[in-house]
């Protein structure tokens, strides 16, 4: 039997292999090119301390979770209770920093009053220009920064119990123990 008559079969098996591998991937999740780069510099008004400006210097000295959220974002509302849970837990060893994305600050303040505020600090990005610098394309998104203010991980989509237990919590531990 000539070898060339088996070529179609071989080619087909390669394609099946690729597709099989493809079934386990998430084609619409975009990886961040900012991983292992310092957080983009910014200076935005603070929501919690009116009149003050918050900058990227706020990230230094501790592990930070920067959470991009908005009142118009349905999934953010679903993520919110879990954020409250991890934020109010005793022995919280990170800062939960909110980035209010393309939102109405007054509406956002009211919303937080109504549903509770999990954030230790919130920056107001009304135009969304700062978020573009962070490569934000949807919400909610959460960035994990180390003590030096370097982005180490990006979570696209809401933080769930599973994501927290399997990925974020161990990562925060590891970063906390770094110099």
């Amino acid at each position, binding site marked *: 039997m000539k070898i060339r008559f088996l070529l179609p079969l071989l080619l087909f098996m390669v394609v099946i292999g690729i597709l099989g591998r493809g079934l386990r991937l998430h084609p*619409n999740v*975009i*990886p*961040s*090119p*900012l991983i292992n780069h310092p957080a983009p510099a910014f200076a935005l008004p603070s929501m919690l301390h009116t009149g003050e400006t918050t900058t990227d210097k706020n990230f230094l000295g501790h592990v930070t979770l920067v959470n991009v959220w908005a009142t118009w974002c349905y999934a953010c509302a679903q993520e919110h209770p879990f954020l409250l849970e991890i934020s109010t837990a005793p022995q919280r060893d990170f800062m939960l920093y909110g980035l209010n994305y*393309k939102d109405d600050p007054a509406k956002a303040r009211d919303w937080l009053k109504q549903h509770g505020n999990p954030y230790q600090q919130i920056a107001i990005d009304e*135009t*969304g*220009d700062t978020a*573009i*610098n*962070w*490569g934000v*394309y*949807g919400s909610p998104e959460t960035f994990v920064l180390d003590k030096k203010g370097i982005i180490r991980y990006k979570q696209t989509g809401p933080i769930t119990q599973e994501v927290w237990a399997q990925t974020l919590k161990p990562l925060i531990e590891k970063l906390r123990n770094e110099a």
Partner: protein
Amino acid sequence: MKKFIVMLFLCCTFLNAAHAAEDMFTFQNAQDQQRFDTLTTELRCLVCQNQNLAESNAPLAIDLRFQIYKKILQGETNKNIVDYLVARYGSFILYSPPFNLTTFILWLGPLLVLLSGLGFLLFYLRGNKQRTLHVDVA
């Protein structure tokens, strides 16, 4: 908050002193307009991932269109604008993939397949002709 540089294009024919509508994006010259069209059609919307930036009505796409518009007016080159976006969103935003070590198969593949297919066909037909010729002679 977005500032427009509005220029009314004077058209060669007016229609009863009706007012002329203004372009959403106005440029100093046709070349810039062309650059804007090309850039926005060759960049992918990250929210509606099946559309390019020109077509998508997602808020992020609208924002990015304005960013590109502003940068063209500021005189940035195409390469700068693309690099700016790739630095933030990665190669995913390019609908035309870059040509590098990981993608050269993608770009050269089609031509290679065509040429090797035709080449194989040629040798195959020639080869068989020769063989039957030899058989006849022998």
